[in-house]
């Protein structure tokens, strides 16, 4: 156990270094959500006039969208890194050491946590500067960061799963557009009860991304909404556990060492 923790520490260190040393990974994950946020906040400000819209500041409403989009970049970060390891043979290098499988997965996710913290800090700072409210106060900030990092971990674990199944960075990249569809078919831009189109509303009701966004959003707009938080944390945790379990199985298939 002690030895495994040492391994996790070393792999985590590497994972963080890989994030920090790849500006091409960090910059888009910070910029794109912010650009989209700026576009939405200026273009959809009028939506706050709709009767029943939960806040009169669209940026307060939309900030969770940025967090969600940023979290999806975790798939790219963690997945591509692991896929590169497989393709480059670094995975074999690690296999030839006494490395435990779970230590490898845990280590690979460390970079996700760091990237998630950087993202949360940037989005929140810019959001607050741009006039967003934070109804739940300073403690809410901590809960928001925790939830967004948990969502990042879940999506990072999905990236690991695809990397292990496919062994290909392209496959990981190929998943990314699917996430965007999930994102846009959620309550990212409008509250679910204000979506007039029936099929669109039905999809958003079934889309787990809606609830993750709403969990984060509730902290900005409503203060402490136990149900929204429970759904957000719960679904993210379920996704994380399921993805990790599937990734562990995929890892066993790939770690064929005797």
């Amino acid at each position, binding site marked *: 156990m*002690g*030895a495994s923790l*040492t*391994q996790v*520490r*070393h*792999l985590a*260190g*590497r994972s963080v*270094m*890989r994030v920090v*040393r*790849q500006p091409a990974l960090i910059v888009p994950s910070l910029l794109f959500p912010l650009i989209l946020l700026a576009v939405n906040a200026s273009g959809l400000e009028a939506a706050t006039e709709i009767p029943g819209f939960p806040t009169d500041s669209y940026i307060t409403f939309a900030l969770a969208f940025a967090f969600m989009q940023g979290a999806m970049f975790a798939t790219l970060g963690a997945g591509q890194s692991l896929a590169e*390891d497989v393709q*480059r*043979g*670094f*995975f*074999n*290098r*690690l*296999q*030839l*050491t*006494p*490395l435990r499988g779970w230590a490898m997965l845990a280590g690979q996710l460390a970079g996700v946590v760091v990237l998630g913290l950087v993202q949360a800090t940037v989005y929140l700072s810019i959001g607050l500067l741009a006039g967003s409210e934070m109804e739940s106060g300073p403690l809410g900030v901590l809960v928001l960061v925790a939830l967004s990092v948990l969502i990042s971990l879940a999506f990072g674990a999905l990236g690991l799963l695809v990397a292990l199944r496919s062994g290909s960075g392209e496959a990981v990249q190929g998943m990314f557009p699917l996430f965007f569809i999930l994102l846009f078919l959620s309550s990212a831009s409008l509250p679910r009860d204000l979506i007039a189109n029936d099929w669109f509303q039905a999809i958003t009701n079934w889309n787990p991304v809606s609830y993750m966004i709403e969990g984060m959003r509730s902290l900005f707009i409503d203060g402490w909404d136990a149900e929204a938080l429970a759904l957000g944390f719960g679904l993210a945790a379920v996704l994380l556990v399921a993805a990790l379990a599937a990734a562990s199985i995929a890892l066993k298939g790939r770690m*064929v*060492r*005797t």
Partner: protein
Amino acid sequence: MLISANDTGVVSRSLDFGDGDGAPSAAAGTGRNGRVRGGGDNGIEVSGLVREFKKGPRAVDGVDLSVAPGEIYGFLGPNGAGKSTTVHMLTTLLPPTAGSATVAGHDIVKEGPAVRDAIGVALQEAALDPLLSAREHMRLQAGMHGIAKAEARRRGDELIDRVGLADAADRRVAGYSGGMKRRLDLALALVHAPRLLFLDEPTTGLDVQSRTALWEQVANLAAEQGVTVFLTTQYLEEADNLADRVGIIDRGRLVAEGTPEALKAEIGRPTVEAAPAEPADRERLAGVLGRFGAPTQAAPGASAVRLRDGVDELAAIVRALDAEGIRIGQLDLHAPSLDDVFLAKTGRRLEGAGDGDGEDGGNDGDGHREAVLAEAG
């Protein structure tokens, strides 16, 4: 200082590495424990090893071999002969379809972790992370093996120095040449002081200087530390210069095995290759040469025979040609090479060609002749 019981346990084994005054493990492997077989403490015993892939023929088709402790064993064969597949099986990365093997006295299927603990491996791709420096690679590799921090740093610096990367130790690997990457890979393979070292085509794609430098380091390791080395190569020269014993593999089967000298002696006699000054004389020249031995393959425009009675006949050949009035354009005496051994065993030739796939500049065009095995179909 923080030295836990666990740390010292891990480190104690690795301490005898380095300055060579610790007893080399090879001696311990054979003598002290009274083990007779080569598969004792740091040898390799392979019996009937087979690996089949779903598509295609058997990649490895019943290989038997034995590597003695402290020996450098050269596994020579063309691309696709089954060298890497064999290495992957012996290093526990690939389960065999049939047959068995022990490495450092441990069964490669049943005792994977024990095998991995005893071996250092540098695989063909020299898998490194371009974003990390040499020193960071060392730290990571040592961490995976559970080597304590202070010891990891000491060993890391020592190994980096040993492979001549001290000046580049803090630079990211992305900027390294092919030779530097291979040397770092070698150093990484040594971080846990393994008793056996597997090197899969360690010099493929390297220029001549880098190749020679790596040979020197491998030879020193084997000599000073008593590390057993299992090395695959497609370069005859490499097997000839570096290996104590050579196994020639072709299409998954071991076709010859022995010291380079013994293998060449088995083929025995040298060949003489001659080309006439006047191309029209070629037939007559071949006729004269034919009196001295059996014809063998020659360059275009030339004829060659394997001498029946050895080098002493050279003078007689020159006299005979002179007597026939054939002016000699070129006359070469070739001592038997592993190339000839390969030809004799497989019926196919080795290609005499420059190294065209060098990563850092490739062939330097200095006329250095390099025998590379012909690509196997």
